[in-house]
C-alpha cells in the first residue's frame, strides 16, 4: 500500500491520552481542553506545549479562583471552570480563540493591559470589571478586580510565554459604595428644593443616575385630604406607557391595579410588587438585557406622625437580590426624600449656622452716646476700650465681623471718633444688641428727665426713635425667630421670622400671652427652661423637640432689663434629621465592615486592637471582646507578631499605606498567608490615631505557588537526571548516578535500586547510594519479609510510603527487623511492574521519621520509571553493541571484500579478500583479470563504467553479479574511491565489494509481492477500502472509487460516513467495536455515490494489524433485488400450495366418496359398464388427489428455514419405513442399513427422500424376487454420500437423466402407479442443500440412487 498510509497509521489518540495527563482533574474545562483540536491554533498539538504552559494550565485548571490564560504572541485563551461563567455565551467557542477574536468589542481596552506584562512590563489590572454571572437563582451583577500578570517561559523568545488574568470579587464593596453615593446625592440635591414637587423632581433626577440600584422611580404626593396621590415626578421609563397613572385613589376599594399605594398607606409597610410584566402593558427596560421584574412601594412619612406625604415606587434591579441591605438602602433613600419634602420651602438660613453667620458679616451698628456708668459696670472690655469710655458723648459702634483683622482695622480707624464695640460672630452681636436694647429702654427715660433743653430733648427723642427703628430693622433682618416677652409673658415684639416659624403673624402675637399662643409647650422643657431664665435671670440655651409640630428647635433666651425675656429660636429639624441619617449611614458602614469576608481590624497607635470584624473574629477563633485592647504580641508568638507589628510601626511612622504578606495561624494552628493593606486612620484634622488593616487570605495561592516552585525544581532535577543518564553505557553506572542524584536532591539517607529473581521471591539491591554515615543496603532479602499488606500494594504496582516505621500499621515484625538492622525509620518503595512481574523496585530510606509529600513521591516514581528505562536501554544497547560487533565480524568474514587497484584500474599484487571471495588465483585476477569473475552480461558494462571513472578520477559505484568461489552468482555492490597524492595524481584505488545478494532477493520478493497485491487489488471488481477508524480513507483500489463514482484522489479526502446513506453510520460504533475485538464482520450496507444514487454493498470488514480497517465491498444491489423478487414468488407459491391443499381436494373427495357410494348402494340398478365407469371415476379422483398431494410436497421443499436444521438420518428412515409398512409387508421387502449419521438437514426432507426412494425400490421391484433395499452413508469431506441400492427392475441408461423430471414416468399407471413427482421432489430437496442426486443402474439388475447432503459443521 502507498506510503502515506504508513505515515498516518498509529493511533494519535493514544499518544495524546498519555501526554495530556496534566489536564486530568481539570473539571469541565480540563475535558474541553483535552478534546480541543489545538493543532489548528498557533499553540500546536498538546504534546508540543512547553513545560511552562502545561504547568500553568494545570495550575489554572485546578484553581478555584476564576483564571484565564493568554498564551503566545497571539494571546490564545485557556480558562478554568470558575472563569467560564464570565465568558458567557462566547463559551465554548472562546476556548483556543485569540483575544482579538473573542473580545473584539473591548480589544482596544484589553490590548495595552495584556501587551504591557507580555512585553516585559509589570503587571496591569482593571480595578472594577463588571460582569453578569449566573451562579445562583438569578443572574447577578458582579464586580471584579482583574490582574494581568506575566507568566515566565524559558521556551519563549523574551522569556514570557503569556499573560495570566486572575480575578478577585469586589461586588459587595462596589455596590455598597454606590449606595452611599445615592444617599449622599439625594440628601444634598433634594434638600435644596423649595416645594414638595421640586423635592420629588430633584429626587427623581438624582435617582435616574443610578439605574443599577433603582432602575425606575415614581414619586407620588398625597393631597391634603389624604384620599388621592398625584404623580409628582418620575424617571427611568418612557412616559405615558401605562406605568405612571397621574392620580391613584388611596382608599382600598379603589385600589389601583398598577401600584398598590392604598395597601402601603394602610399597612405603612414596604410592599414588593412582583411580575411587573403581568401588571404593566410595557415593562421599563432597565439597565440590563432583561427588563425589570419587580418593584417596591414605600411610604414617604410626613412631619405629622402616622401620615404620609407621599409614596415612592422604585423598580428593583433584576441583577440584585432584595436582601436586607437592599431593603435598608431603599428605606434610607425614602427617608432622604421624606426629609427633602418636609423641608421644602423652609428658608435656607435656618439650615445652616454658617450661612447665618454670613448674614452678620461686616454689619456695623451705630449707637447713641451712652451713660458711662452703665457701660463700665457691664462691660468687661480691655483697658483700651475702657479708656475710650471716658470720652463723654462719643458715639458707639457695634461691629460684628468674624474676621479679627477686620475688627481690629475698624477699631483703629474709627477709635478716635467712636466707641467701637466688636463682636466676633452673629451670636455675640445679637447678645450685644440685646444688651443695647435693654439699655435703650431704661436709659432713654432717664435722659428725658435730665435734659434741660427741650430742643435737645426733642432731638434726643427723635434720635432715639430713629435708633429704635434701626434696632427693629436689625431684629427683623436677623435670621432666627425672635420674641420679646415682658415679665407677664406677654409678647411685646415678634419678628417676621418668628411669624413664619410659628405660623402666626407677628402682629397677631403682640400683646398675647406666650403660653396661650403655644399651649403645647406648657410643661415641656421649653416651659421649664424659660421659667428658669426669667426667675434666675440667666441666659438659657437648649434644643427641644416640639412634638406638636414634629420639629426640633434651638432656643436661646436672655433675661431683659425690664424683667422680661428675649427669646431667639431656630428650626434645627434638618440638623437632627441629618444626624439621624449619619447614624444610619454609620450602621450601614458597620454592616459592610462586618459582612466582609476579608478580615478587617483597626489598631491604635500602640498596636492595640480597637475594632475587628466578624471575619477577623472567626479566623482568630476568640470573641472580639477578649481581643480588643490587646496587641498581636499578647496572643501570638513573637516570631509571628514581631514582623507584623514592625510593618504597623512603619505605616504609623510614615503615614503611608503599607502592603505586606503576613502569616497568621488559624484556630487549628494552621498557618495562613495574608495579603494585608495597612492604612493610617486619620481624624478629620488629619492626625493619625491608628491603623485600619484589611487582610486577604492568600494561603491557597501561596500553596499553588509553592507547589509550582517545587514542580519546577523537580522538573529541573529530572532534566539533570536525564542529562546525567543519557550517555552512560553501563547499566550499573546508570543506577549509581541516578541513586546518587536522587538521594542528594531529596536529602535522603539512602537510595537503592533493586531487581527480583525470576520467581519474584527475592529482591536484590544491585546498587545504592548512601549519605555519608549511612551503611550500604546492598543485599538480598525475601520479598515476603515486607509483610502481606505492603507486598500486596507493591504487586498491584502501587507505591508504598511509610512515614514512621514504628507507628505505621503496614510494617510487620520482619520488616521492622530489617529497618532496625539498617537503622531506618521512614521509606518509600516504588515498584515497577512489567509483564506481570517486578521489573525493579526503587527504595528511598530515611534515618529519621519523615513525612513524604505527594510531590516527593511522584518525583520518586518518575525517577524509578526513568532509571528503569535507562537501565534497560543501556542493557539493550550493550547487547546490541555485542551483536553488532559480531555482525560486523561476520560481514567482514563473509561478504565485504576489500581490494586495491592501481591508478589505471588494474588489480596489482596480492588481493587476499578478492581471492577468497571469488576463488580466483592471484594470476587470474591480475590486471583486468578480475572481470572474468563478473557475470558475462555485466562484465562489459562494468569495465566501461570502471574505465570512465578512472578517466574522470571520480568515485566508482556499480552493481554487478560476481561469481563466488562456490560457483554461484552473487549480486554485489561495488564502491571504489581514488587515493590522490599531493599533485592530485591518483596513487591507487581502494574498493569494497559487498555481497548484497540476500538483500536483493528479499527486496525483489517484497516488490513482487507488493506488485502482485496491487495488480490483484486493481483487477478485482470488488471495492477495497482502507480507512482509519472514524477517519479518512487512506487507500482504495480503482474499483472502490468507480463503485462510488469518485476519482481515487477524491475518495481519499472522504471519511467513512460520507459515502454511506444517512443513518447507516449509526451502526458504525458497534461494528467498530466488533472489529476491535478481532471479529470479521459481513453485512449489507447502503452506500451513497457521488451523484447521490444509492447501492447496497455486501461488506466484509476486518481490522488490520496496525489498527486500520479494511473493507471489501461488492455491489449486490441487483442480487438483493432478485432475492427479494424470489422471496415474493416463494410467498405466492406458498399461498397457492395452501389453496391447492384445500380447494382442489375438496371436490375430488366428493367425487371419490359418492362414486363409491353409488357403486355400493346402487349396484343393483347399474349395469357392468356403469360400474366399470364408476371405477374409472373413483381411480381418477384418487389419482388426482395424490398428484395434488405430491405437487404440494414438491412446492413445499423450498419453504421453511434451513438455519439450524438438524436431523438424525436413522430416525428419518424409521419414520419413512413406518409409513411404507403396508407396502413393505405386502411385497415381503427386506430393508437394511448401515449406521446412519446426523446431518444439517430438515428432518422432514430426509424423511421424504427415504420414503420416495425406498418406496420406488419396492414399487419397481423385480417380479422374480422379493425386494431387497440397502441404505448406507459415507463421509466425503463436508458431505455425506448416501446410497439406496435395490435389486429391482433397473433403469435403462438412456432414460436415467429423465427420471428426475417433473411428471416423468417410464411406466404406465397400469404397470406401476405413481405421479411422476417422487424423484423430482427428491432432486429438489437435495438441490436445496446444494447437493446432488443421481442414479447408477442397469436394466434388469437393480438401481442405486446416490445423493450428497451436508454434514454437521464441527463446532
Amino acid at each position, binding site marked *: 500500500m502507498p506510503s502515506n498510509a504508513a505515515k498516518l497509521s498509529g493511533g494519535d489518540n493514544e499518544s495524546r491520552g498519555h501526554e495530556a495527563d496534566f489536564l486530568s482533574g481539570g473539571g469541565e474545562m480540563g475535558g474541553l481542553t483535552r478534546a480541543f483540536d489545538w493543532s489548528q491554533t498557533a499553540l500546536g498539538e498538546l504534546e508540543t506545549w512547553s513545560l511552562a504552559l502545561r504547568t500553568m494550565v494545570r495550575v489554572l485548571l485546578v484553581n478555584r479562583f476564576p483564571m484565564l490564560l493568554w498564551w503566545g504572541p497571539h494571546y490564545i485563551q485557556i480558562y478554568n471552570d470558575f472563569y467560564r461563567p464570565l465568558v458567557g455565551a462566547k463559551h465554548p467557542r472562546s476556548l483556543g480563540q485569540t483575544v482579538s477574536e473573542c473580545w473584539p468589542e473591548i480589544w482596544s481596552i484589553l490590548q495595552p493591559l495584556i501587551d504591557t506584562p507580555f512585553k516585559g512590563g509589570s503587571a496591569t489590572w482593571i480595578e472594577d470589571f463588571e460582569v453578569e454571572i449566573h451562579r445562583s437563582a438569578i443572574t447577578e451583577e458582579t464586580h471584579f478586580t482583574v490582574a494581568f500578570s506575566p507568566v515566565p517561559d524559558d521556551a519563549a523568545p523574551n522569556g514570557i510565554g503569556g499573560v495570566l488574568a486572575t480575578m478577585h470579587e469586589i461586588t459587595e464593596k462596589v455596590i455598597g459604595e454606590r449606595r452611599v453615593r445615592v444617599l449622599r446625592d439625594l440628601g444634598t440635591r433634594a434638600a435644596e428644593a423649595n416645594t414638595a414637587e421640586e423635592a420629588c423632581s430633584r429626587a427623581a433626577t438624582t435617582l435616574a443616575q443610578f439605574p443599577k440600584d433603582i432602575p425606575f422611580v415614581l414619586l407620588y404626593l398625597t393631597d391634603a385630604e389624604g384620599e388621592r396621590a398625584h404623580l409628582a415626578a418620575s424617571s427611568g421609563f418612557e412616559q405615558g406607557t401605562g406605568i405612571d397613572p397621574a392620580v391613584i385613589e388611596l382608599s382600598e376599594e379603589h385600589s389601583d391595579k398598577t401600584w398598590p399605594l392604598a395597601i402601603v398607606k394602610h399597612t405603612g409597610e414596604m410592599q414588593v410588587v412582583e411580575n411587573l410584566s403581568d401588571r404593566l402593558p410595557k415593562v421599563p427596560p432597565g439597565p440590563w438585557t432583561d427588563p425589570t421584574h419587580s418593584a417596591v412601594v414605600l411610604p414617604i412619612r410626613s412631619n405629622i406622625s402616622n401620615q404620609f406625604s407621599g409614596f415612592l415606587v422604585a423598580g428593583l434591579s433584576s441583577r440584585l437580590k432584595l436582601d436586607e441591605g437592599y431593603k435598608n438602602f431603599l428605606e434610607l433613600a425614602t427617608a432622604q426624600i421624606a426629609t427633602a419634602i418636609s423641608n421644602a420651602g423652609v428658608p435656607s438660613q435656618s439650615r445652616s449656622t454658617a450661612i447665618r453667620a454670613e448674614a452678620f458679616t461686616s454689619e456695623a451698628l451705630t449707637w447713641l452716646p451712652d451713660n458711662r456708668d452703665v457701660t463700665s459696670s457691664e462691660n468687661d472690655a480691655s483697658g483700651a476700650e475702657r479708656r475710650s469710655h471716658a470720652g463723654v458723648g462719643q458715639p458707639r459702634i457695634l461691629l460684628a465681623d468674624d474676621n479679627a483683622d477686620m475688627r481690629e482695622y475698624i477699631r483703629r480707624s474709627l477709635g478716635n471718633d467712636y466707641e467701637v464695640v466688636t463682636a466676633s460672630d452673629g451670636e455675640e452681636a445679637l447678645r450685644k444688641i440685646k444688651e443695647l436694647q435693654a439699655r435703650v429702654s431704661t436709659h432713654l427715660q432717664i435722659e428725658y428727665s435730665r435734659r434741660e433743653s427741650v430742643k435737645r430733648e426733642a432731638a434726643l427723642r427723635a434720635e432715639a426713635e430713629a435708633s429704635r427703628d434701626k434696632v427693629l430693622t436689625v431684629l427683623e433682618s436677623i435670621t432666627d425667630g425672635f420674641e420679646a416677652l415682658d415679665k407677664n409673658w406677654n409678647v411685646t415684639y415678634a419678628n417676621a421670622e418668628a411669624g413664619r416659624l410659628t405660623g402666626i403673624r407677628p402682629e397677631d402675637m403682640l400683646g398675647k400671652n406666650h403660653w396661650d399662643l403655644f399651649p403645647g409647650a406648657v410643661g415641656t422643657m421649653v416651659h421649664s427652661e424659660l421659667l428658669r431664665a426669667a426667675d434666675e435671670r440667666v441666659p438659657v440655651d437648649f434644643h427641644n423637640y416640639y412634638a406638636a409640630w414634629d420639629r426640633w428647635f434651638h432656643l436661646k433666651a436672655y433675661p431683659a432689663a425690664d424683667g422680661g425675656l428675649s427669646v431667639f429660636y431656630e428650626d434645627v429639624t434638618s440638623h437632627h434629621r441629618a444626624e439621624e441619617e449619619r447614624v444610619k449611614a454609620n450602621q450601614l458602614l458597620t454592616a459592610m465592615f462586618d459582612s466582609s469576608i476579608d478580615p478587617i481590624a483597626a489598631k491604635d497607635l500602640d498596636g492595640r486592637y480597637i475594632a475587628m470584624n466578624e471575619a477577623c473574629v472567626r479566623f482568630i477563633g476568640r470573641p472580639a471582646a477578649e481581643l480588643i485592647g490587646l496587641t498581636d504580641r499578647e496572643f501570638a508568638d513573637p516570631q509571628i507578631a514581631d514582623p507584623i507589628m514592625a510593618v504597623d510601626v512603619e505605616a504609623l511612622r510614615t503615614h503611608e499605606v503599607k502592603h505586606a504578606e503576613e502569616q497568621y495561624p488559624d484556630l487549628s494552628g494552621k498557618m495562613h498567608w495574608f495579603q494585608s493593606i495597612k492604612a493610617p486612620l486619620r481624624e478629620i484634622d488629619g492626625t493619625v490615631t491608628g491603623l485600619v488593616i484589611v487582610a486577604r487570605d492568600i494561603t491557597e495561592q501561596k500553596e499553588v505557588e509553592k507547589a509550582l516552585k517545587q514542580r519546577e525544581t523537580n522538573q529541573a532535577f529530572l532534566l539533570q537526571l536525564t542529562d546525567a543518564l543519557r550517555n552512560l553505557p553501563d547499566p550499573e553506572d546508570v543506577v549509581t548516578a541516578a541513586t546518587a542524584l536522587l538521594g542528594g536532591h531529596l536529602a535522603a539517607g539512602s537510595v537503592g535500586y533493586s531487581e527480583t529473581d525470576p520467581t519474584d521471591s527475592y529482591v536484590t539491591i544491585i546498587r545504592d547510594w548512601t549519605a555519608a554515615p549511612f551503611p550500604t543496603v546492598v543485599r538480598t532479602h525475601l520479598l515476603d519479609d515486607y509483610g502481606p499488606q505492603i507486598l500486596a500494594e507493591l504487586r498491584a504496582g502501587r507505591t508504598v510510603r511509610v512515614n514512621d516505621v514504628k507507628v505505621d500499621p503496614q510494617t510487620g515484625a520482619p520488616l521492622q527487623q530489617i529497618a532496625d538492622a539498617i537503622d531506618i525509620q521512614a521509606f518509600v518503595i516504588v515498584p515497577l511492574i512489567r509483564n506481570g512481574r517486578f521489573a525493579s523496585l526503587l527504595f528511598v530510606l530515611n534515618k529519621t521519621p519523615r513525612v513524604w509529600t505527594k510531590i516527593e513521591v511522584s518525583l520518586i516514581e518518575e525517577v524509578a520509571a526513568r532509571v528503569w528505562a535507562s537501565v534497560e536501554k543501556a542493557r539493550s544497547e550493550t547487547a546490541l553493541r555485542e551483536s553488532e560487533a559480531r555482525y560486523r565480524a561476520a560481514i567482514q568474514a563473509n561478504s565485504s571484500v576489500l581490494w586495491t587497484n592501481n591508478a589505471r584500474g588494474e588489480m596489482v599484487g596480492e588481493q587476499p579478500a578478492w581471492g577468497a571471495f571469488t576463488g580466483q588465483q592471484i594470476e587470474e585476477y591480475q590486471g583486468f583479470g578480475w572481470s572474468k569473475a563478473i557475470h558475462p552480461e555485466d562484465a562489459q558494462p562494468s569495465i566501461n563504467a570502471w574505465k570512465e571513472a578512472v578517466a574522470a578520477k571520480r568515485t566508482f559505484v556499480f552493481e554487478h553479479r560476481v561469481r563466488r568461489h562456490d560457483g554461484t552468482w552473487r549480486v554485489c555492490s561495488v564502491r571504489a574511491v581514488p587515493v590522490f597524492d599531493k599533485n592530485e595524481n591518483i596513487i591507487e584505488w581502494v574498493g569494497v565489494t559487498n555481497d548484497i545478494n540476500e538483500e536483493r532477493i528479499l527486496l525483489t520478493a517484497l516488490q513482487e509481492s507488493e506488485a502482485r497485491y496491487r495488480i490483484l487489488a486493481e483487477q478485482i471488481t470488488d471495492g477495497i477500502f482502507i480507512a482509519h477508524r472514524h477517519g479518512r480513507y487512506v487507500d482504495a483500489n480503482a474499483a472502490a472509487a468507480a463503485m462510488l463514482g469518485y476519482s481515487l484522489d477524491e475518495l481519499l479526502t472522504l471519511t467513512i460516513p460520507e459515502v454511506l446513506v444517512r443513518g447507516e453510520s449509526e451502526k458504525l460504533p458497534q461494528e467498530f467495536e466488533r472489529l476491535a475485538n478481532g471479529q470479521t464482520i459481513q453485512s449489507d450496507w447502503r452506500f451513497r455515490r457521488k451523484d447521490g444514487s444509492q447501492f447496497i454493498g455486501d461488506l466484509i470488514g476486518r481490522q488490520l494489524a496496525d489498527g486500520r480497517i479494511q473493507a471489501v465491498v461488492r455491489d449486490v444491489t441487483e442480487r438483493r433485488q432478485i432475492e427479494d423478487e424470489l422471496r415474493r414468488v416463494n410467498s405466492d407459491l406458498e399461498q397457492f400450495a395452501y389453496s391447492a391443499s*384445500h380447494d382442489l381436494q*375438496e371436490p375430488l*373427495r366428493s367425487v*371419490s*366418496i359418492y362414486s*363409491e*357410494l353409488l357403486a*355400493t348402494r346402487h349396484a343393483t340398478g347399474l349395469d357392468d359398464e356403469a360400474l366399470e365407469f364408476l371405477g374409472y371415476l373413483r381411480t381418477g379422483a384418487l389419482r388426482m388427489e395424490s398428484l395434488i398431494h405430491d405437487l404440494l410436497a414438491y412446492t413445499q421443499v423450498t419453504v421453511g428455514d434451513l438455519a439450524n436444521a438438524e436431523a438424525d438420518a436413522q430416525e428419518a428412515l424409521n419414520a419413512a419405513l413406518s409409513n411404507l409398512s403396508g407396502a413393505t409387508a405386502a411385497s415381503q421387502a427386506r430393508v437394511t442399513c448401515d449406521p446412519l449419521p446426523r446431518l444439517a438437514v430438515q428432518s422432514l426432507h430426509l424423511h421424504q427422500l427415504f420414503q420416495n426412494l425406498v418406496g420406488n425400490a419396492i414399487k419397481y421391484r423385480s417380479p422374480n424376487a422379493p425386494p431387497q433395499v440397502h441404505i448406507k452413508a459415507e463421509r466425503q469431506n463436508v458431505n455425506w454420500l448416501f446410497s439406496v441400492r435395490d435389486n429391482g427392475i433397473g433403469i435403462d441408461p438412456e432414460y436415467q437423466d429423465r427420471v428426475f423430471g417433473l411428471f416423468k414416468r417410464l411406466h404406465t399407471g397400469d404397470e406401476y402407479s405413481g405421479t411422476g413427482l417422487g424423484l423430482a421432489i427428491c432432486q429438489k430437496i437435495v438441490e436445496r442443500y446444494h447437493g446432488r442426486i443421481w442414479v447408477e443402474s442397469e436394466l434388469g439388475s437393480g438401481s442405486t440412487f446416490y445423493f450428497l447432503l451436508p454434514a454437521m459443521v464441527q463446532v
Partner: protein
Amino acid sequence: MKQRPQILVVEDNKADLFLMREAITCADVEADLHVVSDGESAVRFIDKADTDNAAPCPRLILLDLNLPRKTGIEVLEHIRRSHRCSEALILIVTSSDSQNDRRATSQLGVNGYFRKPSSYEAYCKIGEIVKDLLTTPPEKPPNGLPE
C-alpha cells in the same frame, strides 16, 4: 326428563353434510341436529342462544374451517366469547391439513380435529367420535373454564 343434547353443524358442502348426518345416525347418537351453512349464520345462532334462553344452546359444534363469509376461526372466537355457548365441545371438520390451521384452532381450544377423508368408511368414523364426545366429555373444557 333429560333433554336431548343439541348439536350444531356448520358446513357449506351438502355432500359433506349428507355424510356427516349418515355417520351420526349410524352411530346411534341421540341428539337434535341444527345445521347452518355459513360462518355468519353460525354467529347468529350463537347470538340467539345468548339473548334467548329458550333458544337451543349447542352442546357440541361440528365446525368446518373453510366457510363462506366468516371463517371457522372467526366463528370459534365468537363461540369462546359467548356466555352461554363458550363451553360447547368443538370438533373441527375440515379438508385442511395445514399446520397453521391446527395451531390456530388449538390455541382457541378444540376437542377434536377431524380431517375429511376420501372414503366412505373413513368418513363414518366421525359418528363414533361425536358419540364419544357426548357420552364421555373431557374432564375439563379445553380453554380451562370451570364447568
